[in-house]
């Protein structure tokens, strides 16, 4: 039995009611439906705003982070006055301002193998707006096990992808990506950057797909993957088929329950910006400052050259991480060296590469040049 609409709601949704594909019946369907948005970042901002505006009756938000100023270049559901407050609370406030007639349920916690089934079972559809591989595999598997559609979106720099993974009717995420890339190969947005409007483009496509699935109209992106490139302004589609060898939705599936996704992907379940190579290999910014007073230390900056224009040590050798393996001959393994990047993540990877190549006198600047700017040289900006 679908819920009725008040006169106020009929007025609010009049532009929907005028479309025959939605109409009164469709709007009631939306009011009676629910969606769980995993991640209240760039994708989550666009999806949550539009689902709220469209009148999806109950929307759940999962995120454990707080709003930070680096979010605001793309996470338009938040705002400058909300810096430091919980993302789920910030988002709920904005959604209820946009549409007080809906319910917004918030989960201020990471989406994990422990809580995911319990949270997700109460929603009709899941929206994948996460920023890391472990949570993407988790969201997929939860949807397969619960028989729910997974509206997928993913972004990097200028590239976006979108699809609807619905194992009942088509392939799942694992059919396309049976295993994750090796840790470190694909940079996160925190390391590699992202055009601010890109999650808006992909997030609104996810919102469109979610509404179509909830309304049962049109042809959702089931069995199709959208590939968007903002620089070329290209929208390409490829066909996706169910993978008969899929370990979670195939006929011989051997994964029957949620697993340890961080172990499976070899990376943490959040947008990695850890900045540490482990206690034995790290040097903190204050320690480095002390050491530099007494000795000359070679600094190897593994960031991209354009990042050195933002902040830099005065005397560094710059070899970007991506080219380091091919340029080892330029370095002297007998020389003491401190590796530097933005936040210590890429330099930790560079350190691993150098140690494997036989370098022993290398250290990683924990927290990167941002930590140096925070703790030692406050004249430098943090980015």
């Amino acid at each position, binding site marked *: 039995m679908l819920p009725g609409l008040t006169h106020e709601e009929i007025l609010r949704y009049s532009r929907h009611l005028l479309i025959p594909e939605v109409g009164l019946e469709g709007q009631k369907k939306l009011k009676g439906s629910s969606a769980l948005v995993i991640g209240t970042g760039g994708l989550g901002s666009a999806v949550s705003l539009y689902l709220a505006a469209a009148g999806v009756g109950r929307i759940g938000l999962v995120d454990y982070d707080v709003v930070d100023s680096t979010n605001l270049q793309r996470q338009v559901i938040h705002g400058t006055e909300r810096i430091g407050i919980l993302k789920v609370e910030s988002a709920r406030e904005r959604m209820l301002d946009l549409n007080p007639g809906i319910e917004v349920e918030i989960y201020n916690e990471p989406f994990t193998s422990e809580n995911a089934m319990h949270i997700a079972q109460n929603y009709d559809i899941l929206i994948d707006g996460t920023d890391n591989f472990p949570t993407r595999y988790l969201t997929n598997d939860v949807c397969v096990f619960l028989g729910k559609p997974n509206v997928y979106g993913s972004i990097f*720099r200028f590239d976006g992808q979108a699809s609807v993974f619905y194992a009942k009717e088509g392939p799942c995420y694992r059919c396309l990506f049976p295993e994750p890339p090796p840790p470190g190969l694909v940079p996160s947005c925190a390391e590699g950057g992202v055009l601010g409007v890109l999650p808006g483009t992909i997030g609104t496509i996810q919102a469109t797909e979610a509404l179509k699935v909830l309304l049962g109209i049109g042809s959702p992106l089931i069995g199709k993957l959208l590939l968007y490139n903002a620089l070329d302004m290209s929208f390409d589609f490829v066909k996706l088929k169910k993978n008969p060898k899929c370990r979670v939705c195939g006929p011989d599936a051997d994964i029957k329950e949620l697993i340890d996704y961080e172990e499976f992907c070899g990376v943490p379940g959040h947008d990695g910006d850890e900045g540490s190579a482990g206690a034995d290999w790290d040097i903190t910014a204050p320690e480095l400052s002390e050491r530099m007073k007494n000795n000359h230390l070679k600094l190897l900056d593994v960031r991209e050259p354009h990042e050195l224009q933002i902040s830099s040590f005065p005397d560094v050798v710059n070899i970007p991480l991506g*080219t380091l393996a091919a340029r080892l001959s330029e370095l002297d393994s007998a020389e003491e060296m401190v590796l530097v990047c933005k936040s210590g993540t890429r330099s930790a990877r560079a350190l691993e590469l150098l140690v494997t190549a036989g370098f022993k006198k290398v250290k990683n600047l924990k927290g990167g040049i941002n930590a140096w700017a925070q703790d030692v040289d406050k004249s430098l900006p943090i980015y």
Partner: protein
Amino acid sequence: MTILKIPTPLRHYTDGQAEASVSGSNVAAAMRNLVEQFPALDQHLYNDGELRAFVNLFVGEDNIKDLQGLETPLGEGDMLRIIPSIAGG
């Protein structure tokens, strides 16, 4: 020649190029030709001479897994595409 579309995460290793013209009568040969042109791609696409399992290749709209895998023939003007795993949100 086949046009090969290079996804953003890998353009770092192709001097920023978004497309490459590759020669080869099938996908395996075309991919080898790509790596000859851009040796820095090798370690990201191959492991001990085998294409890494997470690398998704499509000819036109179709996954090569649904065609003849690496033996899928390529003709003049075919579009070969590497679909990357990306996770940003």
